[in-house]
Structure formats: C-alpha cells, structure tokens
C-alpha cells in the first residue's frame, strides 16, 4: 500500500515486481498506466499540436488525497496490494504520467478497484495540466466525462 508523487519517471516492471514480491495470495493484478497523448487542438483558423504539458500539483495535499482514495478502495474491495505513482512537472507526448496497480485474490475486484482509483484521482487529486501549443500555453479545463466517471462510484456507495 503506497502512494508517491514524483518528478522522475517510473519503471513499471520494477514497481510491479516489488509490489507483488512474496505475496502468494494475489490471483489478479490490474494495472493502469496513463500516458501523455499527442493531441491536436483547433484554435480559430489553425490546428495546433500539443507537444508537452506541465503538471502542477499541491505538495502535501496531493499525497493526502491519494492516500484517502487508496484507503477508500481498500474499504470497498479485498485488496492485497495497491500502488499509486503520479508524476508532476514537464512531460512530453508518449511520457508516462501515472501508474495505478491493484492486486487482489480475485480479478473482478482488481479490475473494479483499479478503475475506481483512476477515475477518482482524476477528480479528487490536486493536479492541473498546462498544455504547450505552438500558439502558447493553455490550462486544461476539467472534463465533464471525468466527473461522470467518478460519480458512478458515488452511486454505488451504500
């Protein structure tokens, strides 16, 4: 059970090996890796390519928010291992942003808890994306889809 916020990249294979080492009760490990996608935005007459972005965060609050999200997942599902690693700073297209890994005796729980963590950290963890386009910098607005994805889990709460 761990949460990390860091500027440097992470090694997915090494993180997973460390997370599951010696634990023979894990039957399914579900992992999500978020990457910076090369995107195009249309502004006025011209189409701009986004080459990189900077992820700003709120040190201290970020770690606390991620720990609370992780604790909530552990309350909801029988989890043997969880890991959230989130990067901040400048990231280029193709770079890894976030790693979420969940190990459980049962694959259904591993899938649900992993998707829950990814949906929730998008709306509950204090990160902000600043995109670099050839035309200048642009703060990313929140996506309605992200709120809807996170809200699913609220409804499922009893």
């Amino acid at each position, binding site marked *: 059970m761990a949460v990390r916020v860091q500027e440097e990249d992470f090694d997915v294979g090494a993180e997973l090996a460390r997370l599951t080492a010696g634990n023979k009760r894990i039957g399914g490990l579900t992992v999500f890796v*978020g990457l910076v996608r090369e995107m195009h935005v249309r502004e006025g007459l011209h189409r701009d390519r986004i080459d990189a972005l900077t*992820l*700003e*965060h*709120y040190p*201290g*609050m970020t770690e*606390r*928010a991620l720990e609370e999200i992780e604790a909530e997942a552990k309350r909801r599902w029988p989890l043997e291992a969880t890991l959230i690693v*989130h990067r901040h700073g400048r990231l280029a297209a193709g770079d890894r*942003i*976030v790693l979420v890994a969940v190990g459980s005796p049962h694959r259904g729980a591993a899938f649900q808890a992993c998707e829950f963590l*990814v949906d929730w*950290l*998008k*709306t*509950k*963890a*204090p*990160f*902000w*994306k*600043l995109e670099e386009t050839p035309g200048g910098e642009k*703060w*990313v*607005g*929140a*996506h309605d889809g*992200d709120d809807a994805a996170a809200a699913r889990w609220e409804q499922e709460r009893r």
Partner: protein
Amino acid sequence: MKVRYFAWMKRTVGVAEEDVTPPAEVRTVGDLVVWLRGRSTGHAEALSEGAAFGAAVDQRTATFDVPIGGAREVAFFPPFTGG
C-alpha cells in the same frame, strides 16, 4: 494565515502564496473569498463570482461554508485535471 493559489489563479493573482490577516468577521471560506477580492484587480478577477474554482482548508477540500478559524493554510484552485 497563508493563502495559496494554483494553476491559472496563481498567474492571475500574481503570487503563489501570501500571508494575510483577515478581520474577525471573515469566518468562512466564502467570507475570505469576498475579502480577498479587495486586495488587487488580479485577486478580484481570479476570485470573481463567475470563475469556477474550489478551495482547501489545511489541505483538505472545503466548500465555501467551511469555517477558517484556526486554519493555517487556505488554498484556491481551478477544477483538478490530473491522471
């Protein structure tokens, strides 16, 4: 009390953080927003009625009715866009 601003609000206000001493009648996050607007045109713009932003008191997300008495740190920020 420390007040912190993030993302575009930091740029609009012009500072990342500042130490303020609001008067006693400023009791909630909402009171603080109104009081901070008077500090500069940048504050007024960043914290305007029409702007979509949230707040945290001592690093926990807080609605505008949350009291700020005894708080060490209040932060204002646009909606999160991480992950």
